[in-house]
């Protein structure tokens, strides 16, 4: 008997961590109990995108999109929806703007403006089932390349498509392939860079989890085009689910003769091995990644020679990022013109972003290049929650830049972002609102990059921690105006003289915030004020005498006993010396009597070095 319903339960890592497996089990039990197991099938898919709404599930053919599903909802969904055809409205996605319940996935703004190319199969097929992938035109592009196209024709179509490296730098992919194809070496390698290291980024993980065959197919096509016989997928050991699914996919592809010896009986042979990385951010840099695969310390190597000429084990090596690989089969199948019809002239195609921070709909989105930041943040992302004001958006991960409101109508493409002092990067996109202190944000990213510097070259190893020291000095109220010049000089010097891309981009968050938010830096230095009230050394908690009802709740909850007073006799008083600025009193006060001050009253001497 044919199935009439497919229930797609998202099992991307985010939904797994919000217990999608329990939901799946409960659904499965209910379906069995109602005798529906022949007509309804549960499919576990990769990430569907809106991660903060998880666990999410999608019911086909009607396309009903359920959010925040709990195991105890399973009975109701099966009874009402699967049996009686009445979707359970309380679990359907609700449009926050229109306050209306949306029954079909297509009408949801989060999905409506997206264009899925790379993520086409994510959330739609079962990643552990190669047949579903094949049904979705899987391996057809490989077949086409192997049987109908000469090697250089494959490279030509990639070149013509204008595809650029999705790892961040935006180097033309076709050119890279050409370099490797024309290099000589007894063996050539194809490598997938899955060392996704940006905090908050999960584009690569989601694609590898949700549609591993797309990456495998892309790599195999490239191997044919450049003449490689071996491939490596370098992936973080922190991504166990992606590794598991990749291994399953590789096994299935080998079994079907789509990988290994004599692929599709064309005489072409190629196989892929998975290598796990230990999570060093610098290993996303291709020469460091090569060193790591070879079993060496993960540090960048001198270029030239470029990996295309002398890479892995001294052989010509083609390295592309996961998302770049995800584009290949679509281009081979649909042609360069089709690809160029999406996106912009210089940045064709789509880009996947991990949207996070102070935005209503966080998650994974794929958009055509050239969409403006405003559309992405306000239409797809749904804008800033809790009625707060947008302040900045940080693109490109920890070494990207912060873009202020006045540039929100900038189209998202490699050149436009770079012009603003930000970068495309691998697709991190963090939205900030008025509660974010930009100095603190710069400090946060610099903490990350200085920790992740490999330690080989001086500017990056030593320069980043020194910049961090200066930022700490500023956020603790000990900065001077000279520090701003010093930060600028150091930042520019590190960018200009660092060995690899890590150092060459790491100062971006500082330089871009200095450029667009210098007034916040000034306030920290001259007024000892943090307007977002984030920097704990620059804030003080006070109890408003008139508003205090002397209920004593603040004193009871203060973890350090810094609040004293007598019940019923206002006001209670906070001892500023003892206060650790945890904000508990502010949270618990039922009368809103606790205020946070910054700048105006906390003029205590912030001398660095005083005991």
């Amino acid at each position, binding site marked *: 008997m044919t199935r009439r319903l497919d229930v797609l339960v998202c099992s991307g890592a985010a939904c797994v961590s919000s217990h999608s497996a329990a939901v799946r089990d409960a659904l499965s039990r209910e379906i069995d109990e109602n005798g529906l197991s022949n007509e309804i099938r549960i499919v576990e898919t990769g990430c569907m995108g809106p991660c903060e709404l998880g666990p999410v599930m999608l019911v086909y053919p009607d396309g009903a999109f359920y959010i925040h599903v709990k195991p105890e909802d399973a009975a109701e969904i099966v009874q009402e929806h699967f049996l009686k055809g009445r979707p359970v409205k309380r679990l359907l996605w609700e449009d926050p703007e229109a306050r209306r319940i949306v029954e079909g996935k297509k009408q949801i703004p989060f999905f409506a403006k997206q264009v899925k190319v790379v993520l086409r199969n994510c959330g739609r097929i079962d990643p552990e089932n190669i047949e579903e992938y094949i049904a979705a035109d899987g391996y057809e592009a490989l077949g086409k390349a192997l049987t109908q196209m000469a090697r250089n024709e494959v490279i030509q179509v990639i070149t013509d498509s204008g595809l650029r490296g999705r790892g961040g730098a935006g180097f033309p992919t076709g050119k890279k392939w050409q370099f490797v194809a024309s290099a000589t070496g007894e063996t050539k390698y194809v490598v997938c860079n899955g060392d996704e290291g940006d905090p908050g980024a999960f584009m690569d993980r989601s694609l590898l989890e949700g549609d591993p065959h797309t990456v495998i197919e892309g790599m195999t096509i490239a191997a044919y085009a450049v003449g490689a016989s071996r491939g490596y997928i370098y992936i973080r050991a922190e991504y166990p689910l992606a590794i598991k699914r990749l291994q399953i996919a590789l096994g299935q592809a080998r079994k079907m003769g789509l990988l290994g010896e004599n692929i599709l009986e064309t005489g072409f042979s190629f196989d892929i091995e998975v290598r796990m990385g230990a999570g060093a951010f610098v290993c996303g840099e291709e020469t460091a990644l090569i060193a790591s695969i070879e079993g060496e310390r993960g540090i960048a190597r*001198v270029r030239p020679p470029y990996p295309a000429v002398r890479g892995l084990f001294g052989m010509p090596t083609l390295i592309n990022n996961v998302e770049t690989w995800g584009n290949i089969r679509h281009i081979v199948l649909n042609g360069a013109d089709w690809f160029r019809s999406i996106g912009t002239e210089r940045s064709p195609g789509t880009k996947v972003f991990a949207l996070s921070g102070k935005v209503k709909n966080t998650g994974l989105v794929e958009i055509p290049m050239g969409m403006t930041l405003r559309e992405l943040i306000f239409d797809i992302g749904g804008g800033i929650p809790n009625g707060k004001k947008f302040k900045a958006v940080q693109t490109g991960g920890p070494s990207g830049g912060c873009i202020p409101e006045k540039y929100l109508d900038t189209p998202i493409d490699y050149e436009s972002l770079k012009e603003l002092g930000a970068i495309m990067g691998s697709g991190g996109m963090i939205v900030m609102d008025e509660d974010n202190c930009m100095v603190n944000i710069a400090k946060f990213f610099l903490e990350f990059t200085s920790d992740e510097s490999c330690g080989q070259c*001086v500017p990056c*190893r030593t320069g980043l921690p020194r910049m961090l020291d200066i930022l700490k000095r500023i956020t603790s109220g000990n900065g001077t105006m000279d520090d701003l010049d010093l930060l600028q000089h150091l930042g520019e010097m590190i960018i200009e*003289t660092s*060995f690899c891309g890590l150092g060459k981009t790491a100062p971006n968050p500082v330089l871009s915030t200095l450029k667009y938010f210098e007034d916040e830096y000034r306030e920290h230095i001259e007024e000892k004020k943090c307007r977002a009230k984030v920097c704990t050394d620059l804030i003080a908690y006070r109890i408003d005498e008139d508003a205090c009802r002397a209920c004593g709740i603040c004193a009871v909850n203060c973890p350090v006993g810094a609040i004293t007073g007598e019940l019923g006799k206002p006001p209670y008083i906070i001892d500023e010396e003892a206060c650790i600025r945890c904000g508990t009193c502010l949270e618990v006060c039922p009368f809103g009597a606790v205020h946070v001050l910054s700048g105006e009253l906390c003029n205590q001497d912030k001398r660095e070095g005083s005991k």
Partner: protein
Amino acid sequence: MKEILIRIDGKEVSAPAGSTILEVAKQQGIPIPTLCHLDGLSDIGACRMCIVDVGGKIVTSCTTKIAEGMEVITNSDRLAELRRLNLELIFAERNHVCSMCVSNNHCELQDLACDLGMQHVEVPYAYPRLSLDASHPKFIIDQNRCILCGRCVRVCAEVEGAHVWGIAGRGSEARVITELGIDWGDAEMCTDCGKCVQVCPTGAIVEKGKAAAEMEKHPELVTTLKERREND
């Protein structure tokens, strides 16, 4: 061998293909400051002192091979500023107290500060608390004075062939180590040859028994040794 024509500081010179910019500059008597480079050892481009301007782009001259028609500038105000700031960073990173150092007056780092006209270190000093390993019968490694140039690592691997030295940790936690981090005195692969001592540009790796300013080093010995071996 094929000769290549380049322009260095406005002067047209020809040099064999495969030469680095640093090699060509040396032949021409053009001084370029270096720290991690040592003739006879491989180049890693770590210290960034030898940066030059090639067509507006800053590159390390020790690792960049010459190419036909290359325009190289070895000295400019900007380059001087970048080198000086880089040097300040090295001084700020560890505890370089010259007055107490066995290598005082015989130190490449100290000399560079004079050569580059470093007036003071503007960036905040890190003042880390680092260890000193005196477990070896003849030598000492003082992390406080190490600049992570990696010469010890390379000389031990490339000339002595003992592979005792390595670098562990990343970022500001990076340290030179002996045999995967055991005490130097326990490192069985060490041949006590002392080449690491001779090539160390500062007072980080030194001979025991030397008082302040007594330690003189001869990195050129390694260069000579390497040349002789290659010529034999």
